[in-house]
């Protein structure tokens, strides 16, 4: 087993990028990551994408993106697990380098959503849930989040204002992220006065249509030290887990066990305790999922996630998270990792976390049937 480093990162701006295609986005981020690493070719390309088959009618992304980059013949694979597509592409790439099966690998997360109507996107977002018994009821992904939000506020006597703080902080952090989709500060009042998507969830508590691509290069730690003058960021732990697919079977606990399990495994591999983590890039495609994720990762007790966020015990989603930076679904996991590398190298600009040594990333798919956790460090 070899130690593995992230040796190059890059990303595009996030937003409704009308003049850019799926291919344009992927090539832009991958080229930036290759340039950052000073690497021209790789042994394998891992693509993370959620909806190109549905929203772009474009499949076979592995070969598509390799050819777009001019890497004739390089093997590749595309991985789909909705919101965790990018995290799982990274996880597989990490295993390949760790096990000595490849030396240099490229991970590209990419999503192109803005060519589709809101109705088409709403339907696509339900593809990660059971079609015959969940999608069939007519519920939307926002509706599933709303079911959890209502139960959470009722069970733990939490005010909606406190949950809404997640959006306020996300937009505040996004202000200093040059790649962010949203650059407008919001108040709690703004969030709670925005239109209702699905009671009680408001428009500004939920992510929206976004295009974007993020990429990174992995290689053995020893190689990384030879080829770069920048601080070398190591992958300390990487894990994923699944849970019961049908939300009603697991909503009662208001705990997403996939997160709990993935975090447990990632911390075991990293051989560090949770108090060593300096900042978190957590899943937050809605306010409530951000709050619950903080709890399930182990940073706050169940029912106390909002207190942890309001008191800012440690920095969360330093570049705006999915709400502020934007949520190009299959690319989000890679964006989190790119932002974590910026923090660990001291390149995060105005939002730089002081003395950041260890960062954690977390994605949760759909309404919680799969989660991925990664721990990166610069020690």
């Amino acid at each position, binding site marked *: 087993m070899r130690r593995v480093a992230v040796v190059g990162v890059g990303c595009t701006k996030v937003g409704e990028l009308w003049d850019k295609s799926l291919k344009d986005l992927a090539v832009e981020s991958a080229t930036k990551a290759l340039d950052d690493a000073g690497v021209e070719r790789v042994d394998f390309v891992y693509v993370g994408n959620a909806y190109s088959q549905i929203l772009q009618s474009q499949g076979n992304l592995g070969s598509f993106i390799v050819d777009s980059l001019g890497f004739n013949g390089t093997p590749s694979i595309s991985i789909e697990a909705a919101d965790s597509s990018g995290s799982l592409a990274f996880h597989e790439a990490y295993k390949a380098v760790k096990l000595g099966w490849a030396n240099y690998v490229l991970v590209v997360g990419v999503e192109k959503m803005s060519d589709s109507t809101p109705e088409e996107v709403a339907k696509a977002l339900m593809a990660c849930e059971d079609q015959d018994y969940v999608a069939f009821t007519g519920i939307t992904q*926002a509706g599933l989040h709303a079911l959890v939000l209502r139960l959470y506020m009722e069970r733990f006597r939490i005010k909606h204002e406190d949950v809404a703080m997640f959006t306020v902080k996300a937009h505040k952090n996004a202000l200093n992220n040059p790649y962010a989709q949203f650059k407008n500060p919001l108040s709690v009042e703004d969030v709670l006065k925005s239109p209702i998507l699905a*009671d009680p969830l408001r428009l500004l508590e939920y992510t929206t249509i976004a295009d974007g691509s993020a990429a990174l290069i992995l290689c053995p730690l020893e190689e990384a030290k030879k080829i770069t003058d920048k601080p070398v960021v190591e992958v300390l732990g990487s894990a994923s887990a699944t849970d019961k697919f049908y939300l*009603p079977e697991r909503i009662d606990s208001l705990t997403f066990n996939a997160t709990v399990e993935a975090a447990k495994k990632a911390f075991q591999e990293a051989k560090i305790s949770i108090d060593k983590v300096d900042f978190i890039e957590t899943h937050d495609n809605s306010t409530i999922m951000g709050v619950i994720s903080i709890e399930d990762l182990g940073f706050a007790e169940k029912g106390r996630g909002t207190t942890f966020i309001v008191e800012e015990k440690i920095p969360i989603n330093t570049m705006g998270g999915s709400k502020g930076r934007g949520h190009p679904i299959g690319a989000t996991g890679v964006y989190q990792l790119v932002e974590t590398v910026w923090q660990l190298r001291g390149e995060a600009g105005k939002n730089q976390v002081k003395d950041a040594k260890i960062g954690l990333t977390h994605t949760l798919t759909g309404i919680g049937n799969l989660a991925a956790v990664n721990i990166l460090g610069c020690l």
Partner: protein
Amino acid sequence: MGMLSAPRYWREIKYRYRLIGSRCLKCGKIYFPRRLVCRVCGSKKLEEYKLSEKGKIETFTVIRRNPPLGYEKNVPYIVAVVRLEEGVNVLSQIVDCSPEEVKIGMPVELTFRKVREDGKEGIIEYGFKFRPTLE
């Protein structure tokens, strides 16, 4: 998007019209939707099980924006997690009840309704929904 083919609809008819799930013959665990393998004991011997038609609302939402294709005419509509008498939770639309009336803990019962009209084959789909329990 390949959702509404006739076979895909009719093979679920029995389960969706009558709320039929599964019961494990080995450990007795009851499931909805139906399963082929018991998650508790791993047994592959499960029988069809007709669930009770009464329950109460655990949590709910009202879909007001961006409904999936085929559901636009229903907006606003209520979707809830209903806890059945067996302790099994199901996801269902709640009908014969306004968004202002619905609340957590409300007793509800099974009913049979049209779900949507859509798709290239023009199928009118039916299935279970729940409504407030009639006195």
